[in-house]
């Protein structure tokens, strides 16, 4: 008798919960009915306006109306609020649709049970099922809702902004409307000379910076760790403590003080140079030297971190490998190249990838030390040491070009995500998780 499950399914499709009532699960069916009622009460009045708002982003702007010689505001459509409200309604719709689909599935399955001749579950049994076998799903439901509305929705909102023309001076609501422009923002970033020149310049420097900063801090850390762990060194703990200090001082303070240290005219470093009769170097005012300074300061800040990591890895290398190498007559350098380095690389490859991705977005060092560095006139709102992320900051807070900032954010994400995933899958530590040799 196929009849039960077909009827149950059709009934549940028509009205949520009806199929369950038909199957004899009255209480469950009523609960589902109430949920659908709630959903309809919220959605029916709002769906039309939400879709209209998302599609058109508003049609009338606000006006000032003189009432007895005093201007009053008559509100119009606020494009961004419309987009936001539309998104919220769409997400609520999605949540209710998910419940709806689950309800249909459930009606079908119970109908199937009845066709086979078995009794459908009573409400008590369903309840025990939910809090027993399906407990994880039940518990995660609330956090999942939270993540949906407080993490995923803002991300989708930001991504949508990149496809509008929301920017100063012509498209700031509520006085002006914002429109959908599709891929125009991305096209401008890549092809319109005034933006693309800045974009590619900043992108190039971001990649150079990420590579150089990661490599220098990593190998710097390796060097320092190896030095400390040498046989003849005494007071190992003291050296470790001293070298950890830069990491212990808050980065904010170190960087602000460094900014004054490197001042070309009045900073102590150049004063020392001058005391020896040498000319000072333009640490922060020349584009090339500013880049060098930024990398050197980042080494000072980043080496402690690598050093601690690698000190830990070094202690895990089995000593008998070294003894065997001694017996075979290996030189120090060969021991380093064949035993130590591969071991360290293997153990810290994921960390290296993480650091590279993190350095692409290393906001603190650039922003606090040079604030984007010597200003470049032919760059749109950017300087010689600006990374994509600091440029994004300036575009948003100083210049209100929100759509360009969103587009850049998406570019950064695509870059980091694709590189990280590709490289991580490629690295041996992922492929051979349980082998170390």
């Amino acid at each position, binding site marked *: 008798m196929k009849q039960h499950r077909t009827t149950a399914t059709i009934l549940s499709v028509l009205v949520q919960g009806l199929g369950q009532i*038909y199957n004899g699960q009255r209480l469950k069916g009523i609960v589902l009915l109430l949920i659908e009622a709630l959903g309809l009460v919220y959605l029916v*009045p709002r769906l039309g306006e939400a879709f209209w708002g998302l599609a058109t982003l508003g049609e009338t702007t606000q006006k000032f109306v003189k009432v007895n010689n005093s201007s009053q505001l008559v509100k119009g459509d606020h494009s961004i609020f419309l987009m936001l409200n539309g998104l919220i309604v769409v997400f609520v719709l999605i949540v209710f649709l998910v419940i709806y689909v689950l309800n249909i599935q459930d009606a079908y399955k119970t109908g199937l049970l009845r066709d086979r001749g078995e009794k459908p579950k009573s409400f008590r049994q369903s309840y025990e099922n939910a809090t027993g076998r399906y407990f994880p799903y039940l518990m995660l439901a609330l956090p999942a809702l939270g993540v949906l509305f407080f993490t995923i929705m803002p991300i989708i909102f930001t991504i949508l902004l990149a496809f509008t023309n929301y920017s100063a001076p*012509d498209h700031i609501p509520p006085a002006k409307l914002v429109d959908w422009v599709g891929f125009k923002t991305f096209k401008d970033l890549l092809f*319109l000379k005034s933006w693309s020149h800045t974009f590619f310049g900043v992108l190039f420097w971001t990649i150079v910076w990420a590579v150089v900063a990661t490599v220098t801090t990593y190998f710097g850390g390796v060097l320092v760790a190896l030095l400390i762990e040498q046989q003849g060194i005494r007071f190992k703990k003291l050296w470790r403590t001293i070298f950890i200090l830069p990491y212990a001082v808050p980065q904010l303070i170190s960087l602000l003080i460094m900014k004054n240290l490197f001042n070309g*005219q009045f900073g102590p470093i150049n004063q020392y140079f001058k005391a020896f009769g040498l000319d000072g170097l333009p640490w922060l005012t020349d584009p090339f030297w500013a880049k060098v300074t930024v990398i050197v300061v980042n080494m000072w800040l980043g080496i402690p971190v690598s050093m601690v990591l690698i000190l830990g890895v070094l202690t895990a290398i089995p000593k008998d490998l070294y003894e065997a190498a001694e017996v075979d007559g290996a030189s120090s350098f060969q021991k380093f190249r064949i035993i130590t380095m591969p071991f360290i690389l293997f153990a810290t490859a994921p960390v290296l990838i993480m650091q590279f991705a993190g350095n692409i977005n290393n906001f603190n060092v650039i922003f606090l030390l040079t604030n984007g560095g010597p200003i470049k006139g*032919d760059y749109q709102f950017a300087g010689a040491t600006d990374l994509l992320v600091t440029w994004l900051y300036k575009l948003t807070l100083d210049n209100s070009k929100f759509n360009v900032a969103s587009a850049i954010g998406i570019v950064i994400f695509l870059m980091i995500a694709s590189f990280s995933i590709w490289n991580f899958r490629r690295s041996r530590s992922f492929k051979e998780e349980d082998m170390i040799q």
Partner: protein
Amino acid sequence: MKKWLGIALASIMVFALAACGGNNGNNQASPSASSSPSASSESPSASSDPNESGAEKLQPEPGASLVIWEDENQRAFVETIAKEFEEKYGVPVKMEKVAPPEQVTKLTTDGPAGLAADVVVFPSDQIGRAATAGLILPNDVYEEETKNSSLENAVNAVTFDGVLYGYPYTVETYALIYNKKLIPEAPKSFEEVIEFAKTFNDPKNNKYAMMWELQQFYYDFGFLATTGGYMFGDNGTNKDDIGLNNEGAVKGGQFLQRLHKELLPIKTGDVNYDIKKGLFTGGTLAMDINGPWALTDYRNAGIDIGVAPLPTIDGNKFVSFSGVKAYYVNANTKYPNASKLFAHYISSKEAQLKNFEMNGILPANKEVAEDPKVKSDEVTIAFLEQFANSVPMPAIPEMGSVWNPIIAAITEIWDEGKDVKASLDKAVNQIKEGIASGQQ
């Protein structure tokens, strides 16, 4: 049979609920339209009250309570005035600390959301941003009064696109602040400054005759403008007419190169506000180009300071940038009448005089500027004299595209001694490109 009856009842329940919900939703769509009729019902009471002293054209809405955003150093003044206002009109006013240069950014997001203050304060160069975004109400009820009682430069600065928005209360410009111990009398021309520097300058011991923030075009502009340059034509409103590379500006740039050699042999990036303050309070900097905001710190350090209008260049009075701080009414305020009344009250003649006594501000009101208390303060007179020679910072939104290119050009001219005309031409081209790409 019973089963189907139950099912039918349940379905009717669901659809009945949905229908009622639908009606509620439609009712919510109309509140925005109802706000204006309620406002118009307020004003007839104002016009039908001729017994008021004539200055009160507005009545505050019943149950109004206001919030004002201001800088922390104005707190004592605002709270005094707020108390008086509450006694007179029964409207309490609360102050929240928000720095004026950041208020427009905050207003852009908070205003339409109904979270912003009712009265805000920001410098006049942001008025273009605020007005084009529709965030502030025009100053209409008190327009004539404001225009008649304020200095002309101040009124121009708070007008945008022909509409007066602000209730100005203080004018700001920079002038020459000098250490009387190192240079007893203020120099009248830049030639005198250069002469003084010949004997005074000693970079090894950090002694300099004069310094200003080279990286802030706010100050560098004066050197280009005094010799004939300008920012935007038509009184700073025509974005297509940029005068930063005309003959006068080129002459100014060449003069800057001379100053770099003979007066201030430092790179632009090496001067910042804190370093300059350190040198001046340490007694090794003789003259500083700075504004009234710096005076308190200098006085507290015990320096015997004098203030004078800036020295002339080639006989021309130094053209500085001026800013005007004014009160503005948030367009999304719930109490527009009470807000306008308060903005007018706190920018009135009496209030500005009190603000001068408490904080030493330069008043925007003509009568207060003539008051003997103000006139007897030599510092204020010097600033007001310099204000008369100043031009307001252009308020059009295109200003945002100007700063980067022109500072890069000044850096090239000053640090590297590049050809002035070429650098300025390049900067103007970049500015024009920047404006064009922003206009999408």
